[in-house]
């Protein structure tokens, strides 16, 4: 369906029916507006239902018994079966997956923001030979397919003894988050006024001190945007941990869920799986509803420029 499919608009415009009398000279336009309004609401509501329905359905299923999920998928739960949730949390190791994800993403996020802003600051505000080269080397990483690097990366990690460790995963997450982070923050640091930094330097602050005490606080809005972007990207990461982190002890959420789903194919604990899915969805859902404006700004910031 494309934007050309708007037949009601076209058909109604021709005869221009006069039912009630709107503002004079405006009859045609006004009725077009009305039909369009009904039509657009209709279409928009249908898509809203398509988006919300699967999510509500999963929440509902997480409170039902396996039997009723399979036999009456659309029925409401007979009562709220919270035991699905506790079973998923403890027996299906969702608690471990959560902990691993929080540790890995927490470490990566701090590292990404710190290292990304340091590199971006230098690249944005200092002239030195090779500045452009380093910048484009970082930016180039955005367009490479990760999957190509994955095979050699596996062996690089293996040789360094970083395979199946949390800190290894953190380092890789940081490295793959740098291209966009540096790209975004470089243009952000360029927009900041240089007079403040110069004043600090005149007062005797070192470059390092100027960066941490003056520039970094000024860059807070940019750091929040790019931080949200990286948080979601790293929280939802699947490919990197699947390849580089095969020890069940260190599984992150996405891996754990796939594992749960594959395992459930045989055991048939559907309600447990749905409880796990909803559990994994909740933190992101909550963060999105609370920080809705920042999340949207953070995610769309990169696409516009």
């Amino acid at each position, binding site marked *: *369906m*494309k*934007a050309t*499919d*708007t037949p009601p*608009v*076209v058909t109604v415009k021709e005869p221009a029916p006069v039912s009630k009398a709107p503002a004079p000279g405006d009859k045609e*336009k006004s009725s*077009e*507006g*009305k039909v*369009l*309004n009904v039509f*657009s609401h209709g279409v*928009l509501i249908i*898509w*809203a239902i*398509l*988006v*919300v*329905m*699967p*999510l509500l359905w999963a929440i509902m299923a997480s409170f039902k018994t396996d039997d009723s999920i*399979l036999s009456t*998928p659309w029925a409401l739960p007979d009562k709220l079966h919270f035991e699905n949730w506790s079973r998923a949390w403890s027996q299906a190791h969702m608690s471990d997956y959560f902990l691993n994800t929080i540790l890995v993403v927490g470490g990566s996020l701090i590292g990404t923001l710190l290292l990304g802003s340091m*590199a971006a*600051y230098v690249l944005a505000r*200092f002239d*030195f030979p090779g500045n452009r080269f380093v910048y484009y*080397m*970082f930016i180039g990483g955005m*367009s*490479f*397919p990760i999957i*190509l*690097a*994955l*095979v*050699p*990366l596996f062996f690089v990690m293996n040789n360094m003894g970083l395979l199946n460790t949390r800190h290894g995963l953190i*380092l*890789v997450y940081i*490295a793959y988050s740098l*291209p966009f982070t540096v790209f975004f923050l470089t243009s952000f640091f360029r927009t900041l006024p240089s007079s403040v930094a110069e004043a600090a*330097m005149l007062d005797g602050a070192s*470059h*390092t001190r100027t960066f941490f005490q003056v520039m970094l606080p000024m860059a807070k809005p940019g750091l929040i945007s790019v931080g949200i972007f990286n948080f979601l990207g790293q*929280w939802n990461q*699947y*490919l990197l941990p699947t390849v580089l982190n095969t020890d069940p002890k260190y599984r992150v959420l*996405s891996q754990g*869920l*796939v594992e749960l*789903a594959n395992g459930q194919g045989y055991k048939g604990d559907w309600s447990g799986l749905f409880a796990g*899915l909803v559990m994994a969805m909740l933190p992101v859902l909550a963060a*999105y509803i609370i920080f809705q404006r920042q*999340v949207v700004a953070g995610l*769309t910031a990169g*696409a*516009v420029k």
Partner: protein
Amino acid sequence: MQHGKYRFIVGFLVVPLVLYAVFVIWPFIQAIYYSFTDWTGLSPDFKMVGFDNYTRMLKDDIFWKSLQHSVLLVLLLPLVTLGLALFFAFMLNVGGRRRKNAAVSGVRGSSFYKIAYFFPQVLSIVIVALLFQFAFNPRSGMLNSALEGIGLGSIQPDWLGDPSLALVCVMSVLIWSTVGFFVVLFSAGMASIPKDFYEAALLDGASRVTTFFKITLPLLWDTVQSGWVYMGILALGVEAFTAVQVMTVGPGGPDYATTVLPLYVYQTAFRDGQAGYATTIGVGLLIITMAFAAIVMRLGRRERLEF
């Protein structure tokens, strides 16, 4: 001011650069090198085989099948996703009842629609794929039981198990999860177009469809174009890989019906133990990604409109 400048620059750049070089740049360079070897990935021994892997790739049926699916995704995903998003965004911003002194206005509750539409974007593609895997379940999934519920019980497609439907199902999931992002993005773009443009056009008797094609689309073209590149990379990259790997069964769907290039790279390397050949297919994927971005940029080049 100059004192200690270079020491500072080096100090600040060295850690990020080393990390980036070791985990990103170096593996990429190695990948291109390995693509000329017969390395299995299991033992440290390998020898150079020249272009053998590349000739093998050109004769490989599964490679062509994966390529075909990837190209199909690259062509269709952006078209449908961006088309839908433009349509919804236009409805949100122009579809409203006319108010006083305003030629065009958004529908009531447009901010609610934007919040709801955007939500799938923040969800992990793994969660989305698992959710839909169950929705598509032929026996007790959401879709087939809904069909039964409205009296169409005789139509019970096997969705993900049907080779002719499976790829469409995967595509619809990717569309479902990305449309909202572009609705928000395009809405922001449309909101910044001055209202008098529409006013003037509507006074001249232009219909809303005309205003869309003559005003909205040209002024949004830059955003549409970067969206096009973004969707293409998504279709050739990790998202497509994850959706196919999680949702469809076996080696890339029934009878390879949904296999895509990144999935084939992954399987060749980590399932079949042919690391050298896998990187060759990876290089093929890299070339296609670059070519795609270059083509879109070139086709999309238009006179820039300022307002």
